[in-house]
């Protein structure tokens, strides 16, 4: 389980932001983490880390124009990121999505954990990202459309022969939120963490610095740290 897809089925639930912040926290705890921005048509990791013009990117590797070692950017001694292209010139059909699996296999050799930021939806790019991972971490918001999306992602993972690593409920705190214990029951998944809605997330995106670094004491930062702790425990148990 050293390669985990951060996936949702439904877009806009906050999985890219979660992926970036989880990567930072776990790397600060000493894990060698590599984030792969596999959201081919909506890459945002560059924006989240303040590397909008990163080059070459995952797209260059998937189109055969760059070698794996050229696209892995070390941000700290324990955190690396494979950024995606923010240009809309890369067409999905021009990319060999199966190379994603080759890349994650390579990265797993030099990382304790590879986090794959999945595309939204259930199309071929998402399926390729799930196939390239060992397990799927479901991210959802506490509402019905998001629950349906998470269930569909579970179905996709099962069909791909991948296990699910639990669920994370993001943006909690609304009046009509579905409680975590109800989500656990309907999903048949352990909720590993709930992350509060936090306006500072938006500020951190604008700053190009993940929330846990820019606002380490923010409520959502504390929630993400707790989640990272539980995820780390799971990783240790798995090893």
């Amino acid at each position, binding site marked *: 389980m050293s390669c985990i897809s951060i996936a949702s089925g439904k877009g806009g639930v906050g999985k890219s932001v979660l992926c970036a912040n989880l990567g930072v926290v776990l790397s600060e705890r000493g894990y060698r983490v590599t984030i792969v921005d596999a959201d081919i048509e909506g890459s945002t990791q560059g924006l989240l880390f303040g590397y909008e013009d990163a080059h070459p990117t995952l797209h260059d590797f998937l189109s055969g124009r760059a070698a794996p070692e050229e696209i892995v950017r070390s941000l700290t001694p324990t955190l690396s990121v494979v950024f995606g292209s923010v240009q809309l010139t890369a067409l999905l059909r021009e990319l060999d999505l199966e190379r994603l699996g080759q890349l994650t296999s390579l990265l797993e050799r030099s990382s304790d954990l590879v986090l794959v930021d999945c595309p939204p939806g259930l199309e071929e790019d998402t399926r390729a990202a799930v196939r390239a991972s060992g397990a799927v971490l479901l991210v959802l918001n506490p509402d*019905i459309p998001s629950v349906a999306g998470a269930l569909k992602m579970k179905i996709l993972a099962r069909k791909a022969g991948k296990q699910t690593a639990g669920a994370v409920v993001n943006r909690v705190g609304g009046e009509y939120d579905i409680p975590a214990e109800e989500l656990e029951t309907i999903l048949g998944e352990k909720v590993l963490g709930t992350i509060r809605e936090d306006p500072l997330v938006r500020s951190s995106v604008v700053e190009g610095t993940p929330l846990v670094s820019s606002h380490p004491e923010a409520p959502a930062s504390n929630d993400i740290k707790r989640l990272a702790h539980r995820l780390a425990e799971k990783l240790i148990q798995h090893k």
Partner: protein
Amino acid sequence: MATIMVVDDEEDILILLKRLLGSRGHRVITVRDGREALRRMKEEKPDLVLLDIMMPGLSGYQLCKIIKQSSDTRSTTVAMLSAKSMDEDKVRALEDSGADWYFTKPIDTRRFAESVEWLLRNPPKRG
């Protein structure tokens, strides 16, 4: 006190839920098929409908869709209660039929009663 309609063709379930939810102070109406449920909904105006899926005549999926498409009944909270436990069944209920929640049989009565209270208090909103 809320009015809860239970629609199921299994007598045991109707008795169990009438006793369980009735003991919590709710008025429980038990109905054995979909057509009767639609007729009784107009009279009783339940706050919550608990629907089995596999019933003779109208299935729970079909009945839920009718309830959610009618301007008279669409605001009523509908939860499926079924032995069908596949994720595909849940997606079909929540997305295609417009159900507000999904319970899988067999139920843990204590947890189920708490979930029903949650649904009555704060039914989930759709985005």
